[in-house]
């Protein structure tokens, strides 16, 4: 059923009970969907197509809200200005009391991803420890793969993550972190394996200037979570639509476009590792 046919149907129904109807009143509230840079860049075309598909499936308009920083999306989500968002596992575990897991993307058959530690292709560094005293690019202070994990890794080596590097800065995006390393702005960076692999497939010239020197253990993939604004009643249909996207032809094409297999409903246990790392650093005042 298309959006237009549904509107026609509603209009016809309301006309049948003899009441004057205005399209604005009959229009259901749009679903506000927050997007963070957990997804690869250049996604405007994809988001347009995906919002159309979701709207058709859900029977209500879907509006994507994009922000360059995880924190901004999280604020909007927690304040109820958006209904759901695709965020990183790290802010989820920090605010899991107020957030509900809706679905987790599946990447290469699993709801898991890694943090890649990358350096310039011609860099002599062989591990994170070789980057001590260098320049390091963090992705986002609310990113697991681009901030939490590398800091935890340094911390586990018995070093102070705040002093290990001579200078660090935030790029506010995994793709930018790759560029920062490729262009020698930073000696190293930690990036989302999903973003890196997607880039490697779509823009091999960008990642060609970089080299992965460490891969983290597997972590729960950045999830789609509902904020306090989304009614519990709406959560079920949304879960259903997302989980069924892989079975729909158009939905599958959209998933292929962003290199995902589909969405699956998962339990919060998937993010236990991230929560443990966050806790460990928080105890030390390093989060």
């Amino acid at each position: 059923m298309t959006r237009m046919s549904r509107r026609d149907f509603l209009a016809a129904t309301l006309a049948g009970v003899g009441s004057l109807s205005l399209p604005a009143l009959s229009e259901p509230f749009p679903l506000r969907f927050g997007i963070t840079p957990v997804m690869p860049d250049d996604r405007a075309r994809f988001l347009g197509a995906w919002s159309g598909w979701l709207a058709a499936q859900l029977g209500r308009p879907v509006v994507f809200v994009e922000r360059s920083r995880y924190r901004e999306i999280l604020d909007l989500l927690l304040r109820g200005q958006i209904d759901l968002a695709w965020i990183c596992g790290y802010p989820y575990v920090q605010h899991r009391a107020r957030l509900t897991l809706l679905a987790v993307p599946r990447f290469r058959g699993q709801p898991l991803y890694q943090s890649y530690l990358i350096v310039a292709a011609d860099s002599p560094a062989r591990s994170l420890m070789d980057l001590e005293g260098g320049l390091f690019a963090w992705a986002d202070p609310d990113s697991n793969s681009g901030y939490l994990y590398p800091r935890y890794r340094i911390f586990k080596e018995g070093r102070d993550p705040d002093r290990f590097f001579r200078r660090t800065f935030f790029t506010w995006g995994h793709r930018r972190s790759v560029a920062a390393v490729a262009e020698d702005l930073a000696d190293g960076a930690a990036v989302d394996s999903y973003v890196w692999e997607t880039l490697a497939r779509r823009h091999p010239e960008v990642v060609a200037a970089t080299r992965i020197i460490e891969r983290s253990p597997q972590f729960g993939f950045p999830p789609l979570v509902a904020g306090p604004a989304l009614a519990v009643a709406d959560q079920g249909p949304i879960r259903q639509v997302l989980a069924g996207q892989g079975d729909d032809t158009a939905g599958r094409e959209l998933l292929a476009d962003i290199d995902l297999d589909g969405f699956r409903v998962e339990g919060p246990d998937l993010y236990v590792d991230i929560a443990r790392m966050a806790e460990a650093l928080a105890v030390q005042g390093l989060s």
Partner: protein
Amino acid sequence: MSLPWSSYRLRLPLSLSVAALTTAICIALAVGLQTLHNLREDQVRNAVAQGHAMGEVLVQALRQDDVWSAYSLLRGPGGASSDAVWILVGSTGRIFASNYPRRYRLDQLLADALPWLPDQRAPGIAAANGQVMLADQPDVQRLLRLSLQSDGIEVGELLALLSDAPYRPRLREILIGGLLATLGVLAVVMPLGWLWGRRMVAPLVRLADCMARVGREDLRRLRCSVPAGDSEIGRLGGHFYAMVSALAKKEALEQQMIQSERLAAVGRVAAGVAHEVNNPLGGMLMAIDNYRRTRHLDQPTVQLLDLLGRALQQIQGAVSPLLVEARGDGHALTQADLEDVRTLVQPKLGKSGVALTWEVVLDAATALPAAPVRQLLLNLLLNATQAARGGGGVRVCIGTQGAALLIAIENTGEPMPPERLAHPFEPYPETRPHQTGLGLWVCYQIVTQLGGRIEVEAAGPVTRFRVRLPLLAEGLP
């Protein structure tokens, strides 16, 4: 034909080529340098505008420690291909961002990255904020420094290192283009220059060939096609021709003087000898005459004395022409004297079939002795008649001009042989049998003694004698 390098036929086209090449290189250089100058100005203007435009965002990035946004702004859409090197420095003097992060590292001290940079705090430099300074570095020619301020406090500094490197290829293109165009022009100029050189040099070559003949050939007969005209070469040819003429004249004069001296010497010797012979001869003839008158002689003696007398008279007749005595006694020359000569010659003219044209005008008695002038005229007239015999003509013109008597006698007929013409007044007894051959020699002696000049010229069948005799100042009785 191999030409020496000094030949103008080579030097002219080569000079043309060198001139064309030099001109083209100069023009290409001028255009190139002007272009470079304009490009530099544009570069500076753009850098200043761009620096000011980025300032606000960069201040914000510095204050928020947002390395990436500063970097992405400096890097621009073109990535690291920008003409200028941009360096953003924080208030601590450490590099915050640059569009060449490989070279200008984050957190590096600016003083380490650019050791040659003058201290920003130096008074003169702070005043030059936003001004472009010249930098004498291999890869930096100009330097722009912009102080970034927030609320009146300096939060950082933006530097633009500007270089000529992006413009060098363009400069090289202009120069190479100019050179190629010149080579094209040279392909046309070289053959033209070669032809022009040949054309210009040809008259010089002719002149040189002609000069080489001077000294080997008789100057009076030297005929060359020397260049003429107003050009330098034409003037050279003219001067050369004038020089050759002067030389020829001088040579002729020398020859004439030699001849005069020789004739004078011969004349003196001849006169001396004639005198020596004539004096005893006169004595002997007088003695024979006396002897004959005073004695009664038998027949054989009379015959012997007649024989002696005739022989002695023959000797006297032969010797007397050598005794030219122009200044003898006599009266002043009149028209009648000259008419007498005409009358004397008339029979001979008739016998030889020669037509005489007589244009003699002598108004009054002329201050010249009549006898020698009559003899002179007679000799010349006989000589002309002899040459014109058998159908020729003789023309006599006599008149006074100023203080001189002019005589011109010309005849048609057999021309004088060249060897004779070279020395016309020397005795040539052998040329005419039964004659002394002394006629012209006598003429010369008379003219010389009268202080005049005589010359002969031949043009085709016409031979002309011209005599100029100065009138005597003291006059004649």
